[in-house]
């Protein structure tokens, strides 16, 4: 396979230039407002997610009290973008893709949100910054997955990853796109840069959800050996950001790895998995976590 220079690193740049120079097409039958607004909306919501991520001590753009609440809300906006694109294109493939996207997002938002309840119960906060700070124990290894509640933390972590794959329309849940049946699903009619923004959003959302998993389950910027640094060391933000990015990028790699490993599910299988397996599992985990944390907090 031929890739770009510098061991393939320049391929990304070449792709960007190629997409920039492609003709911009607005199909004659499409709704111009919805068609144009959809890529902008998904990009806006993807970038807004990055504002609340706690990269390192002192490196966070907005520490909201309602951090995770806000993240869930803004992440759903991308689904609206998908439906806008699918309906606005006035194309039957796009409509099918958008309809599937809506069904899938509605089904997997429940387990996604429920899988976040165990860490919220454990840390007693919505703020991602506060949750990360609480995981600094044990010389930087006091992560939620290593806490006394590890037996709910580990299943809820995998549940979150699975549900976020479906939320981000990644394989094996890429039904809204499914290029082998729906041409390209909701973005069939999109060309050039507008098409590129949908993909940029997909990867940005993947990183954002991985970062949330990192902040809540994998200790955020905390890394083993951080206590060796002097109090208030200037190195801490940099090494912390590096640890955070490494953990989040590892999860992104897992998501890409899953894509090339598992075949795509059928839409009824996707819905069955969401409602009949993941939702009851998420509810069970929530009840178990609530019981455990309440028992631990009893005076």
């Amino acid at each position, binding site marked *: 396979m031929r890739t770009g220079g510098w061991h393939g690193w320049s391929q990304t740049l070449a792709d960007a230039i190629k997409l*920039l120079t492609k*003709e*911009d*097409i607005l*199909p*004659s*039958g499409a709704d111009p407002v919805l068609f144009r607004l959809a890529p*902008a*909306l998904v*990009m*806006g919501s*993807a*970038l*807004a997610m*990055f*504002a*609340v991520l706690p990269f390192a001590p002192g490196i966070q753009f*907005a520490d*909201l009290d309602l951090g*995770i*609440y806000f993240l869930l809300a*803004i992440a759903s906006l991308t689904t609206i973008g998908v439906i806008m694109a699918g309906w606005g*294109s*006035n*194309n039957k*493939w796009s*409509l099918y893709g958008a*309809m599937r996207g809506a*069904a899938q997002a509605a*089904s997997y*938002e*429940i387990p996604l*949100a429920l899988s976040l*309840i165990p860490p*919220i119960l454990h840390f*007693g906060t919505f703020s991602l910054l506060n949750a990360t700070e609480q995981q600094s124990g044990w010389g930087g290894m006091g992560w939620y997955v290593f806490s006394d509640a590890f037996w709910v933390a580990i299943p809820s972590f995998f549940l979150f990853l699975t549900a976020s794959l479906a939320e981000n329309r990644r394989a094996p849940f890429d039904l809204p796109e499914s290029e082998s049946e729906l*041409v390209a699903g909701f973005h069939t*009619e999109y060309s*050039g*840069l*507008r098409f*590129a923004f949908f993909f940029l959003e997909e990867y940005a959302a993947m990183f954002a959800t991985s970062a949330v998993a990192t902040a809540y389950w994998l200790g955020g910027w905390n890394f083993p050996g951080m206590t060796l640094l002097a109090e208030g060391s200037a190195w801490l933000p940099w090494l912390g950001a590096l640890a955070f990015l490494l953990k989040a990028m590892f999860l992104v790699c897992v998501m890409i790895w899953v894509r090339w490993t598992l075949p795509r599910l059928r*839409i*009824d299988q996707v*819905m*069955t998995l969401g*409602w*009949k397996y993941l*939702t*009851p599992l998420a*509810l069970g985990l*929530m*009840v178990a976590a609530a*019981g455990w*944390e*309440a028992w*631990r*907090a*009893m*005076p």
Partner: protein
Amino acid sequence: MYFEYANVLVFFLAGMGLTAAGLLLGSLIRPKRTTDEGLESYECGEEAIGEAWFRFDIRFYTIALVYMVFAVEIAFLFPWARVLKEAVATEGLGGAALLEGLLFTGILVLGLAWVWAKGDLDWVRSWKPSPPEEESK
């Protein structure tokens, strides 16, 4: 506090601005050779029959309703999860805080079980003809 939300808004607008800026930059260098055929809806080379804006079987409308119920449930459960530890440790509240949350969840689980039993969670709902003795009445 609200300043933080202004930060988020800046990020949101930057994302939307990025799309606009990219398209503006592209408009300087990209070709514009539109033909009527090129602007038609893509249906694998065939001429499109009618528009895509027609009535269609939305399939999952019961699932969408169940989703609404659960989404509201989650909106209420998040604050409960946030304060549960403090509430349990409070004198005179204790286990009642946990019990209330579980009761609330229990009602919804019952709802989910009912929808499941009715077959509304299936993508293609199974259809059973009504027994003949009921029709005779």
